[in-house]
């Protein structure tokens, strides 16, 4: 894991993650087209059965990546005006968990209500990305735990997933591009994101100003 203050290193990791993730939906699109060719025989290429839906899902994956890299780029250039409104951290987490529900189930540890003024929609999306990243770079069990608190006038959220004794491996190569996009958003709101692995557990921790 690079030093979290090393922005150049993070940028290189983000580009690497983006290039890597781009290849997954492209592979799916190749396969859908091959299946269509098999079904069509000598006819013109024709998408039948569930192939249009599979193609649509693959294209949706590309669109998601395109949105994330565009947002990241615009955030870094100061071209996005954040829509800060009063919101509850618990509600934001619930919305993030709902958006990530296909990939992971979030359990939120009991906590006191915490509210702040943040970009509600974007932060909920960032939470979804961080839940996915925690699961993906953890043990992939689909179970992610979140803990909330307040420290030094900052709201703290930590996501955790893992299995004790799990083999160590580089974290950033597993996080996925969504992590880097979410991190940029949290930083743009005056917060921080760190991640570390210890005793088999991956923990992503973010702070947001109250």
């Amino acid at each position, binding site marked *: 894991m690079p030093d979290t203050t090393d922005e150049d290193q993070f940028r290189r990791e983000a580009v690497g993650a983006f290039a*890597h*993730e781009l290849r997954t939906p492209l*592979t799916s699109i190749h396969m859908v087209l091959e299946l269509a060719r098999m079904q069509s025989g000598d006819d013109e290429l024709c998408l039948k059965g569930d192939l249009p839906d*599979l193609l649509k*899902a693959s294209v949706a994956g590309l669109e998601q990546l395109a949105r994330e890299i565009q947002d990241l780029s615009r955030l870094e250039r100061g071209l996005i005006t954040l829509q800060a409104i009063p919101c509850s951290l618990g509600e934001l987490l619930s919305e993030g968990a709902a958006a990530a529900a296909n990939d992971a189930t979030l359990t939120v540890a009991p906590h006191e209500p915490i509210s702040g003024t943040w970009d509600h929609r974007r932060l909920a999306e960032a939470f979804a990305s961080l839940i996915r990243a925690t699961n993906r770079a953890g043990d992939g069990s689909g179970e992610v735990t979140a803990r909330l608190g307040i420290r030094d006038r900052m709201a703290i959220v930590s996501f955790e997933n893992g299995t004790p004794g799990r083999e160590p491996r580089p974290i950033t190569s597993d996080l996925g591009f969504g992590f880097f996009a979410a991190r940029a958003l949290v930083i743009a709101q005056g917060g921080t994101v760190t991640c570390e692995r210890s005793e088999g557990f991956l923990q992503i921790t973010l702070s947001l100003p109250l």
Partner: protein
Amino acid sequence: MHILVAEDEAMVSHLLNRVLSAAGHTVTNVGSCREALELLKATGYDLVLLDLHLRDGNGMRVIEAMAEGVVAHRPVVLMTGDFVDADDPRAIRANAILQKPFDLTQLEQAIERCSA
């Protein structure tokens, strides 16, 4: 051929199953190293199509288990979204490398290389 596909991306895994089944192969899908190793202990596959990034770790664990005799050795086609050159130890230890995205021709060529 009886092919074990170890791939954690559900869509890619599903589509590989469809494409390979349509080509006449019998296909079993798993998404983790643990599942792959369990099945390799119990079943005699002709080929393993192995993704480098699996749910619970690096797919190279499966190749290492074969090298150590923990499971029977099988031809392995390693799939990856990373750049892998010919000198990379991962490329040397696998029978063939498929860099994503790949098409059916490349997939068939890799399978043929393993069965030759």
